[in-house]
């Protein structure tokens, strides 16, 4: 039924986490449909956590993503503690924020230096980039390494750390361990500031639009583990209440589940949304970096500017981590005692790629009976498609290779994590009933 349509495909997206491709349908020079197709095989995580204890869930959900395992552990552990009425020690609260800072550093440095910067500078990968700009890549790798080392210090290893438990930790670090790491964090702060300078030099393609932004908001700190869900349209609701305004949908013209708010319009999560909605809560050093950049408005309107937003969040995470390490006193007990309680456990935290919502039903036996996990990439998919629909007409006249490169670059600007998006289905529905 689309025989007169031009179908355009970008097969096998590269430098993203997971497997996906883009399908465009062009009718009379207009993009009638932009579809980000995900062929990442389903792994059924929401079924795999059924019948498990809360602590087992922390180990299992981290496996949704090798790049942001901490995010999954954080949304889950806060959900359970909220339901069970567990009050963790202040030191545990601080350590969890430190663990998240480490993941933000690792994840943002990976994306900026290894996945995204090669686009702006015209290289197929960081390896080729390093041939001409060795120091740049070496600095990026060092920054990523500091994030990974801090993850390993707190969690035993950088990928799928093991120490996060309901009530606290299996083992909390000694003060001397963290103090010894402070010099590395000061180095990370310098590298992060330099990253912002580099990101500002990378000229973004001219493309501006009015997005709709959603992030957590906390009155006293840049959002990570706690906050209310806010939007630039005035939304304000508790993190547990995501399902009151947002919902997942399956759309007949796409092969993936998506998420929308009550208006049915797409919305954007992640560094861009956080910088715009939460810049007043940035650490003074990150605020200074943002103010000096003068980039706030261009970050909001131009999706390619997310690389600057990530750079500023690197400053945020490094500066925040330094403060936490300096003030650290170990908790009295690694974990406080707790008992499971039946009911609904729900929470959202800010993963590197944006708001990550978890909801678990816990039965009388203390085991999970049902789960809903909504990763940021599922939620961002509609925003990515909306941007592609706006942007694609500009590149359709270009040679195929170049058009492909430009569209891929736009998708990469969102740092999509397709492995995370557990809900993506796996079927092309060409010819399905409209």
């Amino acid at each position, binding site marked *: 039924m689309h025989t007169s349509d031009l179908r355009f495909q970008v097969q096998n997206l*590269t430098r993203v*986490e997971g497997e996906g491709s883009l399908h465009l349908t062009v009718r009379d020079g207009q*993009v009638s449909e932009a579809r980000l197709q995900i*062929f990442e*095989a*389903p*792994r*059924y995580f*929401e*079924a*795999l956590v059924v019948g498990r204890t809360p602590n087992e869930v922390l180990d299992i959900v981290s496996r949704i*993503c*090798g*790049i942001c395992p901490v995010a999954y552990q954080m949304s889950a552990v806060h959900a359970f503690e909220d339901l069970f009425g567990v009050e963790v020690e202040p030191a545990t609260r601080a350590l969890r924020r430190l663990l998240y800072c480490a993941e933000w550093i690792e994840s943002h440095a990976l994306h900026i230096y290894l*996945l995204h910067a090669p686009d702006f500078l015209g290289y*197929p*990968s*960081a*390896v*080729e980039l390093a*041939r001409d700009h*060795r120091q740049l890549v*070496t*600095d990026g*790798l060092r920054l990523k*390494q500091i994030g*990974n080392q801090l993850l390993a210090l707190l969690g035993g*290893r*950088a*990928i*799928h750390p*093991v*120490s996060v*438990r309901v009530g606290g930790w*299996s083992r909390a670090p000694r003060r001397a361990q963290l103090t010894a790491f402070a010099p590395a964090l000061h180095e990370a702060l310098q590298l992060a500031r330099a990253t912002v300078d580099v990101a500002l030099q990378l000229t973004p393609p001219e493309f*501006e*639009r*009015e997005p709709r932004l959603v992030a957590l908001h906390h009155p006293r700190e840049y959002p990570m583990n706690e906050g209310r869900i806010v939007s630039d349209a005035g939304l304000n609701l508790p993190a547990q209440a995501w399902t009151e305004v947002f919902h*997942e949908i*399956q*759309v*007949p013209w796409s092969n993936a589940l998506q998420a929308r708010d009550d208006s049915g*319009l*797409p919305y954007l999560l992640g560094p861009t949304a956080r910088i715009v909605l939460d810049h007043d809560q940035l650490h003074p050093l990150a605020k200074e970096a943002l103010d000096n950049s003068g980039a706030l408005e261009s970050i909001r309107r131009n999706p390619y500017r997310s690389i600057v937003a990530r750079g500023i969040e690197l400053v945020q995470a490094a500066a925040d981590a330094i403060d936490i390490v300096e003030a650290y006193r170990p908790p009295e007990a690694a974990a406080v005692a707790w008992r499971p309680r039946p009911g609904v456990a729900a929470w959202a935290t800010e993963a590197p790629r944006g708001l990550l919502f978890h*909801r678990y039903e816990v039965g009388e036996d203390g085991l999970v*009976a*049902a789960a*809903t996990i909504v990763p940021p990439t599922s939620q961002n998919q509609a925003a990515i*498609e*909306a*941007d592609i*629909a*706006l*942007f*694609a007409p*500009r590149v359709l006249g270009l040679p195929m290779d170049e058009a492909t490169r430009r569209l891929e670059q736009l998708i990469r600007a969102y740092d999509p994590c397709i492995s995370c998006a557990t*809900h993506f*289905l*796996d*079927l092309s529905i060409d010819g399905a009933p409209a």
Partner: protein
Amino acid sequence: MTLIGQPATTSGGRAVERQRPRVGVVKFASCDGCQLTILDLEDELLALTDRFEFTEFAEATSKRSSGPFDILFVEGSISTPEQAVEIVRLRAVTKTLVTIGACATVGGIQALRTAAEHEAFRSAVYPSPAFVDSLAVASPIASHVPVDFELRGCPIDARQLVELLTSVATGRRAQLPDQAVCLECKRRGYECVVVTRGEPCLGPVTQTGCGAICPGMGRGCYGCFGPREGANVDSLAGWYLDGPSGPRAQVDVGRLFAGFTGASSDFRGITDRLGGRPPLPMRPAMAHPPELVEAAPPTWGPQPAGEAGDAHE
């Protein structure tokens, strides 16, 4: 302050000219964590690319290759019909095939579902399961093609990865440990969590390679690296059921073995007997199952004139 500086000449420029082994990194159903371990070799990464030519590594480079490969690292389990075809093609163009991680080596946590449970899993997670094109079982690479080396772990250990690459580059045998995590704990002087706290630990039956991370962090091992050869898993399970730290319900012990290597035959034997895999019948696993919605393609809505183009309606 680091700015984008002058192009530097690579010190290893000569080495680049040599014939480097062609290395591919591919993935099937997985979290990307094991291939990320390659990118996490921050100190060695650029040196490695002087010695090896990464001709296929979609997560890291836009240059693609469908082969041939001297070494192919394979992450993830085979979970769709397309993947089952692709792994056979890849094997045919590869000299040395190395599985990286629990998913590729034993199937991963997603391999906990049996063929009989597949339908229950699908309809528990997806409202329109007919749209999901997945195989009944998630299976390890070795059930489809011959595998030359296995790197275990969830995720793999970076030191083992370097050891494997070094051994291939120098033409010697890779030195990978085959003892139990228990032994590693003793070597490192870690307190035994079973003895001191009665906490169940799979260390006695799990192959080391991780560095005994979990006992080192004050908790029991959960078997990421899988059972070591000849491990007496039945005895350990019995110990946790009725031993000094017990008694425990069968299903509580079964769940210990229903982890990331729970699909290995040794651990599967325990869960077949004691339970611990997700219980059936399963009601919809998602507390809020998505609905099918007839909706227009997503747009941002009206845009300021002359700014973002006129592709929207």
